[in-house]
C-alpha cells in the first residue's frame, strides 16, 4: 500500500485504461502493484508445477507397482537394454542447463542483458543436447526391437515374423513375409493386434532365446520356426538371464519398456515445451523486454525448466541404475 501504487491505481481508474500515463507498463489493471502481480503469477506457476508433479505421480505409481511386484523383470530389462553412460551424460546436461537457467534469472534480475542472453542460449543447447541423446537411445531401442506394443519383441502382440532381420519393422509385416515365415499365422497376424482374442493370439515368445526356450513349452509347432542364427547378435548373458526368468516374468518384460517410454517420453515432451518457452523468453530478452522491475517470464519459465530437471533427477536412478 505504498503511495505510488495507490496513485497508479487511481490514475488507472481515472483514465479507464490499462496502461495509463505514468503507469507501470507491465501492470495489469486488476493488480494493485507490480509486486502483487509478480507474486500472483508465481503462485499460479507453482500450482501448475504441483499438478505436473501429480501427473507424473500417476506414472511413478505404475512404475512402483510393477517394479515392486516384479523386481527381476526390471533388473533384467534395465541392465540388458539401458545405457548408463548416456543416461549419466543426460543427467549432467540437464543439471548444467538448470544452472545456466538459474544464472539467467539472476542476470535478468540484475539487468545483465548479455549474460541473460548467453545463459538462455546455453540452456537451449543443453536441452537440445538432451533430446539428441534421448533420440540416440530411442533409436537403439528400436534397433533392438524393444519399443512398445507390437514393436517390442517381448510383447505378446509382437508383430514381426522375422525379428532378426537387418531392417527394423517400420510397418506391420507385409503379407508375403508373414506367409513365408508362418503360413498358418498369416490371416491373423494383423487382426491379433486389434482384438486380443486369446484363441487368435499365436504364442510368440521370441525373446532373445527364441521360442523354444520358453520354459514349460514342450514343443509347440511354431517352435521349430524360432529365428535361426539369432545367437550371433544376441548377448549370451542376456539370453541366459532371460531364460532364468519365470514364465510370468518373461511375459512381463515388455511392461518395463511401456513404463520407460511413457515416462521418459512424457518427460521428453516437457523438454520440448521447455525449449519452446526458453526460445520465446530469448526472443523477448533480445528485444529488451526485461528489467529488474519486470522479469516474470524469465523466472516462471526457469521454474518450469527446473521442474523438468527435478523429474529427470528421479527418473534417472529409477530406470538406469536398477541393481
Amino acid at each position, binding site marked *: 500500500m*505504498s503511495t505510488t*501504487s495507490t496513485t497508479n491505481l487511481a490514475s488507472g481508474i481515472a483514465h479507464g485504461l490499462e496502461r495509463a500515463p505514468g503507469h507501470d507498463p507491465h501492470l495489469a489493471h486488476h493488480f494493485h*502493484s507490480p*509486486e502483487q502481480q509478480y*507474486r500472483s503469477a*508465481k503462485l499460479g506457476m*507453482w500450482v501448475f*508445477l*504441483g499438478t505436473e*508433479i*501429480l501427473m*507424473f*505421480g*500417476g506414472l*511413478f*505409481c505404475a512404475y512402483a*507397482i510393477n517394479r*515392486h*511386484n516384479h523386481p527381476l523383470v526390471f533388473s533384467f530389462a534395465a541392465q540388458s537394454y539401458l545405457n*548408463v553412460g548416456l543416461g*549419466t551424460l543426460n*543427467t*549432467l546436461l540437464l*543439471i548444467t542447463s*538448470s*544452472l545456466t*537457467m*538459474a*544464472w539467467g*534469472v*539472476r542476470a535478468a*534480475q*540484475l*539487468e545483465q542483458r548479455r549474460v541473460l542472453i548467453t545463459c538462455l542460449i546455453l540452456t537451449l543447447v543443453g536441452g537440445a543436447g538432451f533430446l539428441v541423446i534421448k533420440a540416440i537411445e530411442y533409436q537403439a531401442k528400436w534397433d533392438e526391437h524393444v519399443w512398445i506394443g507390437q514393436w517390442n519383441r517381448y510383447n505378446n502382440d509382437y508383430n514381426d515374423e522375422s525379428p532378426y532381420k537387418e531392417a527394423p519393422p517400420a510397418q506391420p509385416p507385409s503379407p508375403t513375409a508373414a506367409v513365408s515365415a508362418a503360413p498358418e499365422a498369416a490371416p491373423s497376424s494383423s487382426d491379433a493386434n486389434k482384438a*486380443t482374442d*486369446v*484363441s*487368435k493370439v499365436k*504364442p510368440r*515368445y521370441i525373446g532373445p532365446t527364441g521360442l523354444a526356450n*520358453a520354459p*514349460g*513349452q514342450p514343443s509347440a509347432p511354431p517352435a521349430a520356426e524360432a529365428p535361426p542364427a539369432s545367437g550371433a547378435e544376441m548377448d549370451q548373458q542376456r539370453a541366459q538371464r532371460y531364460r532364468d526368468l519365470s514364465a*510370468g516374468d*518373461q*511375459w512381463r518384460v515388455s511392461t518395463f519398456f511401456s513404463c520407460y517410454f511413457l515416462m521418459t517420453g512424457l518427460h521428453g515432451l516437457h523438454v520440448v515445451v521447455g525449449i519452446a518457452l526458453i526460445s520465446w523468453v530469448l526472443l523477448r530478452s533480445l528485444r529488451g523486454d526485461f528489467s529488474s*522491475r519486470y*522479469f516474470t517470464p524469465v523466472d516462471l519459465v*526457469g*521454474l518450469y525448466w*527446473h*521442474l523438468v530437471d*527435478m523429474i529427470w*533427477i*528421479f527418473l*534417472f*536412478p*529409477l530406470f538406469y*541404475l536398477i*541393481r
Partner: protein
Amino acid sequence: MSQAESQASAAAPAAEEDHGPHAVPWRALVAVYVVLVVCTGLTVGVSRIDLGNFNIWVCLLIAVIKGSLVALYFMHLRWDSPFYGIVLISAFFFAALFIGLALLDSHSYQPIIKPTPMALPQAPPP
C-alpha cells in the same frame, strides 16, 4: 520467518530503487551445481555396489537431496515466501500418499492373482 518475509515484501517496493529483486549469489549457484554433479557420480557409483534392498533407498535419498537443492537454490525457494514451498511439498506429499496406498493395496492382493490365459505363453491355440 513469516514475519520477516512480510516485512521484506512490505519493504520491497521501497528497496527496489536501491537493490532490486533478490538474486541468488552466483557462488551459491556454482556450489549447488558442484554438489549436484558429485551426487550424480555418487548415485552411479553406489548402484554398482550391492546393498541388497538398500540400493533403491540410497538412490531415492540421493535423488531427494538433489531435488531439494534444485528447489531451494535454483528455484529460489530458500528466499521466497514459504507458501510456494508448501504448494510443492503438498504435491509431493499427495503423490507419495497415492503411490504408497496403491503399493500397499497391490502388495496385499498380488499373491492371489491367477494368471490369465494371455499370461501363459504355453497356452496352445485350440
